């Protein structure tokens, strides 16, 4: 039998159903793997050994009674540290929340519990999800399992690295401008940003509320579909939660077919600034889709060139407002000179508790929202947002899905961009338009770049509420690629 930790969630479900493995065995194998490799990878900020084993025992007991179990019952999962978990340390990668034990579960965490999925621990991330490399985590960076001198992407680099290092079969991420998709691309894994509102934001420590969306991270398209299905659905605790029923995404994987489908290549998401090996693997994948019967057309989304600018005005504006609540009064850090007044305590606490990038974005947002600049910056950015939505609407009137490289380059070396915020922001150039428009997108691995041997991701974008299309196309492409490779790409990691 294959090593337990290298199995996909789909395989683990099958092994448990056959009675070959228990959830306790599977969970323990992953905890052992974490103990073995995480000092090198640093995917986890906190490992919840007791909690995970307790849920595993519960899942095994339920199975023994012959009860009808949720599809992923007993399969362990890792959760990005931006999701609250009752009684378990939750920091969002920040010193300001060091030691905080949330008094409630995020709805996503509650869904995982209801599905009897053991939660292995909380994964590392850029502080408050601001970054593309995990280097802005207050607790040190995560390393890319393909090459530990390189970044695992961000902000959800911990979740992606945990998958690529076989420290978890499934993980939860959040995507505000690419924080699920970009880490997936640079670690050779699959990541999905669902339609805005498809997964509850209750208990997700907010970065930018109109952009944030939680979603699944996995090592296969089918695994991602199963996890997506487990966490999606209406939540009365999130006023922006969609009321529509969750589509059958696993069926979309099974029935995937691109024959006769029009797939649009976005002209603006490629060319200058994109690494040659990224473009090469992308074009080969496009050819495979054409081989499988898709009609490939080129589409232009001219306003995408303004998306990055609009994003870095809207996001800091929303973040500066959301992060005002970290004031040292009710939870988290307080820096208190016994004699200081409340305003001074707040300012000292925030100066000590927030990292460099968080302060930068708070001040940028404060500026963009301030009197005299509001119309020129925030107001204008919101108009660009409308134009980006119109570009998508026009493209989807012509195409079933759109595709592009997920990011311009493969994983870059740790330290390369950490002191250059603008260079860091450019990593998200291809992922940001989707967040501005609120539609759905998925990244899957399409090979290794010839020049550096590192994974390349392809992004599929679908209209609002059409998340199932992502899975149908991704399943066909994944199957075609694995036919040419003879095995999943992830088998090549670490050697």
């Amino acid at each position, binding site marked *: 039998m294959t090593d337990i930790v290298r199995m996909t969630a789909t395989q683990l479900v099958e092994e448990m159903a056959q009675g070959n493995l228990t959830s306790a065995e599977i969970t323990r194998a992953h905890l052992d793997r974490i103990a073995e490799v995480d000092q090198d990878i640093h995917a986890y900020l906190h490992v919840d050994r007791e909690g995970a084993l307790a849920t595993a025992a519960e899942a095994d007991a339920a199975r023994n009674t012959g009860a009808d179990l949720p599809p992923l019952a007993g399969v362990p999962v890792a959760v990005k540290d931006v999701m609250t978990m009752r009684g378990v340390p939750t920091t969002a990668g920040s010193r300001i929340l060091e030691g905080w034990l949330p008094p409630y579960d995020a709805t996503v965490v509650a869904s995982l519990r209801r599905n009897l999925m053991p939660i292995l621990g909380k994964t590392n991330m850029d502080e408050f999800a601001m970054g593309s490399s995990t280097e802005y985590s207050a607790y040190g960076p995560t390393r890319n399992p393909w090459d530990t001198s390189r970044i695992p992407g961000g902000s959800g680099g911990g979740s992606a690295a945990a998958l690529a290092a076989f420290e978890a079969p499934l993980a939860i991420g959040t995507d505000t401008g690419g924080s699920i998709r970009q880490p997936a691309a640079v670690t050779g894994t699959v990541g999905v940003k669902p339609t805005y509102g498809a997964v509850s934001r209750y208990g997700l420590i907010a970065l930018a509320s109109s952009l944030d969306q939680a979603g699944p991270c996995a090592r296969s398209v089918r695994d991602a579909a199963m996890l997506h299905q487990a966490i999606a659905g209406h939540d*009365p605790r999130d006023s922006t939660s969609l009321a529509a029923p969750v589509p059958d995404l696993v069926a979309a994987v099974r029935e995937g077919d691109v024959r006769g489908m029009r797939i649009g290549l976005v002209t603006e998401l490629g060319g200058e600034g994109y690494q040659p090996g990224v473009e090469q693997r992308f074009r080969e994948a496009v050819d495979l889709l054409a081989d499988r019967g898709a009609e490939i057309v080129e589409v232009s989304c001219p306003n995408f060139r303004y998306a990055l600018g609009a994003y870095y005005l809207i996001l800091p504006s929303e973040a500066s407002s959301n992060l005002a609540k970290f004031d040292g009064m009710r939870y988290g850090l307080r820096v208190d000179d016994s004699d200081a007044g409340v305003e001074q305590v707040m300012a000292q606490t925030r100066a000590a508790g927030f990292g460099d990038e968080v302060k930068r974005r708070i*001040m940028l947002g404060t500026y963009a929202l301030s009197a005299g600049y509001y119309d020129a910056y925030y107001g204008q950015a919101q*108009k660009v947002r409308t134009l980006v939505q119109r570009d998508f609407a026009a493209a989807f009137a012509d195409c079933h899905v759109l595709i592009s490289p997920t990011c311009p380059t493969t994983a870059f070396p740790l330290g390369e961009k950490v002191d250059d915020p603008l260079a860091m922001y450019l990593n998200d150039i291809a992922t940001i338009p989707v967040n501005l428009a609120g539609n759905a997108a998925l990244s899957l691995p399409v090979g290794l770049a010839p020049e550096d041997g590192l994974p390349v991701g392809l992004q599929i974008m679908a209209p609002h509420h059409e998340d199932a299309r992502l899975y149908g196309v991704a399943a066909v492409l994944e199957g075609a690629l694995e036919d040419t490779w003879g095995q999943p790409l992830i088998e090549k990691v670490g050697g």
Partner: protein
Amino acid sequence: MSAITRAEVVHLARLARLDLPDDALTHYAEQLDAILDAVAMVSEVAADDVPATSHPVPLTNVFRDDTNQPCLARAEVLAQAPAAEDGRFRVPRILDDEEPA
């Protein structure tokens, strides 16, 4: 359009409740200026007749029934507070000295 001054950064830090040392203020003034230069491209877009979008999907306000619902346990919440007293959050003084009694 940009050219943010150091004095403006001092003001922003005050508004954002960030107690920053002098060298950090200078550093942020330079970086914010560069970032604003880059994002100012949004002003190139002729968009006088374009409506602003604040939210990615059309939404209507939602309400729930006005009934009592369980809330978080007070002891559990206060256990996470930096300081608590008599079942409440204890905060630093909020008024200046020598306020009239």
